[in-house]
């Protein structure tokens, strides 16, 4: 068909003069519009055209305002034409609205069209259209209704939506499917521009989804795609329906009308595939429902037409997004292969795009196509090249980073598009900063290129983070010095050359670095640096911002004496500058250069990058820093009108006001929702990343150190065995360019072959450990980070234990064997996954001094059970009966054996009392002899049980609190022995409900400084999810639900004895956004961990 069109269109020039074309009946070439168009084509200059159009507009204006013109439609079309040519015809806007209002159906149609072309959503004249739309929506004439719905979906003032919404909703029940379909699409449009306006009609969307007309159903999928994107969990129940629909579509069950070039409803298919991808993401059971239909879709879509390729592409994306299934992945990979290898350039492009999407999960796929990728890198079409770089960016690792960055910089040199430049410069900087230390000089050189190429367009955070990196330095002092020195060395020649050509941002970076670090280079006189810097000040194109950077650098450098003349001159020049900042800097320079002592105090060398005062301020309760974008977001939010209804009673709205005063939890939880994918960090192995399945990987550290693997085993293209690497000498010689490419390939795809290096890809990866920057002061919450999870076993030093129970002396017979055993016992405190926090602190209990403090309340001797035949059975005997009477009524944890040797058996449990937590230790003498001199018990006869009761309090919260103790005792022989034990209690055992009123809560909220935010899973059963989730938490963790207001809830609890922790919860996009605050550091972090656990275990 398209051939026919093209043929016809090629014949166009001959038609200009002739009017005998078959379609000419419809050509209104004799009309005034025809004359106008013809007139314009005959003109030769832009000036003439302008004159003609102005004349035309004048004529239209005259006629349009004459009262009973019959030419309105024609006039309007001519105005549209003039506007299209770029001439304003604003006088006709009002007439367009009038025409839509009063004209006949045909005129109305033109009127509406003109309105939709002339005005945009915010134009004030649109208000005049509302009544017309209202009238037409109620018309009995179908065409009028259709027109109204069309114009409504094209542009309609947001705040007028409520006026017509009921009428549009009503149309969902219209007997005519075309009306229903248009109504659904109009609602979709409303949903896009004002989602809260259509929230109440969600169930009507469901009805549209079940509509008997497939067209209406298709239209409703647009809305569903949006809603599922925002909250996939709420629509999981629809998965089987979507799967069934797709099955029917693929199976050709729809009417022929829906076919497009013999392919059944491709748009519908693709929409469904997108929805399925969203639903199946990170959800195995849902994914399993769709495997079959995906397989079917892949099979049915034959490779013969663009539209089937489009479906295949969407299928592949879906397969790689949902929970993986190996045979589907295989088929999808083959499909991508077909795309990439296709001679059709559009398909190749899409293949690259698909590869980029999947390499993070399956880097080997990139390996398979490495030669094609190399070819694409040299493709004459820049778009293809750009897409290839995007792909390479995703597979960058420590070994190929230099080659990839080089390729990117090459591209930057030829690219002229600003947007591309900004984007690429950002990526290069990201890569360079990710792997800086390995190639010191490379890093500085790359950043220099970035600064010169990126110019002043690049994102401002690039120079900032570069300077931060430089100033914070790395673990090795020597490396640190080298890096800084190299930077200085590279900048001096730049300044000696032609600094006028360098972008302002770069000059600012240079002057800062020289100011801070030029002293590292010993052969460089400060005077020379000063004069180089002074030269920058004299340059015409230096911005005043740059100048102030330069002046600050000079202030740091000047020493008085010989340099005095330069600084004197400069400061004199600028101390009268009109720019106040410059004047300020100049004065600073002047004073500080004359007073070296003051200067040393104000600007101590190497002081930069030291932000100790920040952590001090934080500890003192200052609000944490928020990046500008987040602040902006909050600002926007607070500016926007609140559309949610006010609370019912005054106190509620009062309290929510007071919360909002500082930083509304609602707003912040919104922003924390952005990072929603980084949830559930602890205790859970990260299998799923932002984009889908992450391959299992070795620890990062190992990956970074992996040596270049021996020639990469490439599976070869198209399954043939043509090996692609020329690294092996046995290879037959290849032509020169081919060899070059293969060399490039081996340098680009190095490190991809081994599974372990997978981890180096993707943005979300943490920096490899080797390159990790110096750890800053351990602020609250800093140790609660997945990347820092410590999973090695940590050992509690015996010294920590000494003062706990060491006074207890027990006597026993077999001394010598005991000694060895105890030492082993104390060493074996291995950590469970995710509890690193506690143990990490335990390693330095002396300095902290206040980790679980064990307060000995009272020691009670239990009754002697009397002689016992089988000592081994003693522990199995219900120790419950030994629980002190006052505790026996309370619930206690399972009695767990702690440790044992030949004479003693220790077991323990904990009992939760209302205001305390009691640790009960059972000491069982399993030996045949009596034990003497035991302090709590005095003495213990053979096979007896002693019970110690200790009340525990937590002074410094941790996820699990570990109590370590030693039982010392004396053997009858006279040697003292000790037995060490440790017992772990989850923090939750120390949590008690905290009953406060909403007002009290509000006041407390503002006064607490330590906080944390996280998104938790919502429980989605039939009832209200917020209440259900809060109730579950309440039950599991003993929290007190203070109040639930709409979609928000506030909860309070305390850590024994009375350290409060407040929790604000809000339902947001299918997650429960929680924000915890407490005066105690780490308590929010620990509590959120337990909340997560509690919800997961449900």
């Amino acid at each position, binding site marked *: 068909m*398209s051939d*026919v069109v*093209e043929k*016809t*269109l*090629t014949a*166009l020039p001959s*038609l200009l003069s002739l009017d005998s074309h*078959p*379609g000419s009946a*419809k050509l*209104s*070439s004799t009309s005034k519009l*025809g004359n106008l*168009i013809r007139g314009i084509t005959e003109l030769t200059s832009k000036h003439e055209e302008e004159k003609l159009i102005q004349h035309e507009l004048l004529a239209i204006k005259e006629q349009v305002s004459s009262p009973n013109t019959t030419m309105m439609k024609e006039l309007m*079309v001519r105005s*549209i034409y003039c506007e*299209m040519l*770029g001439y304003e015809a604003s006088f006709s806007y009002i007439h367009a609205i009038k025409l839509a209002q009063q004209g*006949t*159906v045909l005129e109305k149609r033109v009127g509406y*069209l003109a309105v939709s072309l002339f005005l*945009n*959503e915010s134009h004030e004249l649109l208000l005049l259209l509302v009544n017309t739309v209202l009238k037409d929506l109620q018309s*009995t*004439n179908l*065409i009028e209704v*259709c027109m109204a719905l*069309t114009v409504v*979906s*094209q542009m309609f003032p947001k705040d007028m939506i409520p006026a017509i919404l009921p009428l549009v909703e009503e149309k969902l029940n219209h007997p*005519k499917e*075309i009306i229903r*379909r*248009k109504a659904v*699409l*109009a609602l*979709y449009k409303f949903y*896009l521009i004002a989602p809260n306006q259509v929230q109440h009609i969600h169930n009507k969307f469901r009805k549209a989804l079940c509509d008997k007309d497939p067209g209406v159903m298709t239209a409703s999928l647009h809305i569903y795609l949006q809603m599922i994107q925002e909250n996939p969990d709420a629509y999981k129940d629809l998965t089987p329906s979507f799967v069934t629909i797709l099955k029917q579509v693929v199976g050709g069950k729809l009417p022929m*009308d*829906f076919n*497009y070039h013999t392919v059944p409803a491709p*748009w519908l298919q*693709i929409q469904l595939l997108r929805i399925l991808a969203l639903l199946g993401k990170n959800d195995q059971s849902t994914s399993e429902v769709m495997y079959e239909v995906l397989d079917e879709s892949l099979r049915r879509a034959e490779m013969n037409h*663009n*539209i089937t*390729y*489009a479906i295949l*592409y*969407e299928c592949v994306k879906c397969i790689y997004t949902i929970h993986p299934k190996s045979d589907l992945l295989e088929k999808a990979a083959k499909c991508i292969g077909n795309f990439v290898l296709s001679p059709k350039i*559009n398909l*190749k*492009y*899409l293949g690259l795009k698909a590869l980029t999407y999947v390499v993070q999960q399956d880097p080997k796929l990139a390996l398979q196509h490495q030669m094609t990728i190399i070819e694409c890198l040299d493709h*004459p079409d820049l*778009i*293809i090249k750009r897409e290839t770089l995007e792909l390479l960016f995703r597979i960058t690792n420590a070994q190929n980073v230099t080659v990839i960055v080089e390729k990117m910089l090459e591209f930057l040199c030829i690219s002229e*598009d600003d*947007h*591309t430049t900004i984007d690429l410069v950002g990526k290069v900087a990201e890569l360079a900063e990710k792997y800086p230390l390995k190639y010191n000089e490379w890093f500085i050189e790359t950043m220099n290129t970035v600064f010169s190429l990126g110019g002043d367009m690049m994102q401002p955070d690039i120079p900032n983070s570069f300077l931060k990196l430089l100033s914070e330095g790395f673990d090795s002092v020597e490396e640190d010095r080298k890096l800084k020195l190299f930077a200085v060395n590279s900048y001096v020649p730049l300044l000696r050359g032609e600094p006028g050509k360098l972008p302002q941002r770069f000059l600012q970076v240079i002057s800062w670095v020289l100011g801070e670090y030029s002293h590292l280079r010993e052969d460089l006189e400060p005077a020379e640096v000063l004069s180089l810097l002074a030269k920058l000040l004299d340059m015409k194109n230096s911005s005043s911002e740059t100048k102030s950077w330069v002046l600050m650098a000079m202030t740091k450098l000047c020493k008085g004496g010989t340099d005095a003349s330069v600084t004197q001159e400069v400061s004199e020049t600028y101390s009268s500058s009109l720019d106040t900042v410059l004047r300020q800097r100049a004065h600073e320079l002047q004073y500080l250069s004359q007073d070296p002592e003051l200067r040393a105090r104000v600007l101590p060398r190497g002081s930069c990058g030291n932000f100790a005062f920040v952590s001090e301020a934080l500890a003192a309760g200052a609000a944490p820093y928020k990046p500008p974008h987040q602040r902006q977001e909050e600002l926007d939010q607070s500016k926007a009108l609140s559309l949610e209804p006010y609370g019912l009673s005054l106190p509620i709205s009062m309290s929510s006001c007071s919360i909002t005063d500082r930083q509304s939890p609602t707003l912040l939880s919104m922003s924390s929702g952005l990072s929603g994918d980084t949830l559930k960090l602890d205790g859970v192995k990260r299998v799923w990343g932002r984009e889908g399945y992450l391959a299992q990987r070795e620890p990062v550290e190992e990956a970074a150190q992996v040596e270049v693997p021996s020639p990469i085993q490439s599976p070869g293209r198209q399954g043939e065995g043509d090996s692609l690497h020329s690294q092996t000498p046995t290879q037959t010689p290849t032509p020169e360019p081919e060899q070059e490419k293969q060399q490039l390939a081996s340098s680009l795809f190095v490190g991809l072959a081994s599974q372990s290096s997978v981890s180096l890809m993707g943005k979300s990866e943490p920096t490899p450990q080797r390159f990790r920057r110096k750890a800053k002061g351990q602020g609250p919450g800093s140790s609660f980070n997945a990347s820092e999870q410590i999973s090695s076993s940590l050992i509690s030093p015996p010294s920590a234990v000494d003062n706990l129970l060491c006074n207890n002396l027990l006597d026993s017979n077999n001394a010598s064997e005991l000694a060895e055993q105890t030492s082993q016992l104390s060493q074996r405190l291995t950590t469970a996954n995710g509890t690193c926090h506690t143990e990490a602190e335990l390693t330095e209990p002396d300095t902290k001094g206040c980790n679980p403090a064990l307060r000995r309340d009272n020691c009670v001797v239990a009754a002697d059970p009397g002689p016992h035949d089988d000592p081994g059975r003693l522990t199995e005997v219900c120790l419950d009966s030994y629980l002190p009477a006052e505790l026996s009524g309370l619930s206690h944890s399972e009695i767990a054996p702690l440790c044992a040797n030949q004479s003693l058996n220790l077991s323990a449990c904990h009992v939760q009392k209302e205001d305390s937590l009691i640790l009960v230790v059972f000491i069982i003498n399993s030996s045949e002899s009596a034990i003497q001199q035991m302090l709590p018990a005095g003495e213990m006869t053979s096979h007896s049980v002693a019970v110690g009761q200790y009340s525990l309090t937590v002074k410094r919260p941790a996820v699990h609190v570990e109590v370590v103790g030693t039982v010392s005792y004396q053997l009858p022989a006279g040697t003292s022995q000790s037995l060490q034990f440790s017992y772990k209690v989850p923090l939750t055992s120390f949590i008690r409900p905290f009953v406060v009123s909403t007002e009290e809560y509000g006041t407390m909220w503002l006064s607490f400084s330590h906080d944390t935010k996280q998104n938790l899973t919502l429980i989605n059963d039939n009832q209200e999810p917020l209440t259900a989730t809060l109730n579950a938490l309440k039950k599991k963790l003993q929290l007190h639900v203070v109040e639930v207001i709409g979609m928000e809830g506030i909860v309070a609890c305390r850590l024994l004895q009375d350290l409060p922790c407040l929790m604000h919860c809000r339902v947001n996009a299918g997650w429960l956004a929680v924000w915890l605050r407490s005066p105690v550091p780490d308590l929010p972090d620990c509590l959120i961990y337990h909340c997560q656990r509690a919800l997961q275990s449900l």
Partner: protein
Amino acid sequence: MRFMLLFSRQGKLRLQKWFTSMSDREKKKIIRDMTTMVLARQPRSCNFMQWKDLKIVYKRYASLYFCLGVESQENELLALEIIHRYVELLDKYFGNVCELDIIFNFEKAYFILDEFLMGGEVQETSKQIVNRSIEASDMLQEVRFTDMHQTLQDDRLE
């Protein structure tokens, strides 16, 4: 979908449709950028381009360029098929469409587009149905529900 532009080989705008609210200045900038970018493309290049955060999908039919601006995560091939179907719809309506048809009857081209796309999404892909509903509004001043229902019923049966 953000916008659709039709322009000639000389860069003359023939049709513009904006699916999101945009100021006149933005529109002018986009039109200018699109015409220069698309017209500068070499033959045998792919039909896709990146412009700011948008994906530009274009195709040339004889002397006329069809240019579609879509979100960058959109399926480019599908966008290309949208253009193609629109050309087919024009062809069906005008009967062997040529650029002149679109120049002289651009309002008809808009009506067809409105019937095909609505709110930036594909609304109706069937050539017959689009054509019938355009003709129905062309011919009839007043269409009562029953009449149109009958017409469309007949169509479905064809």
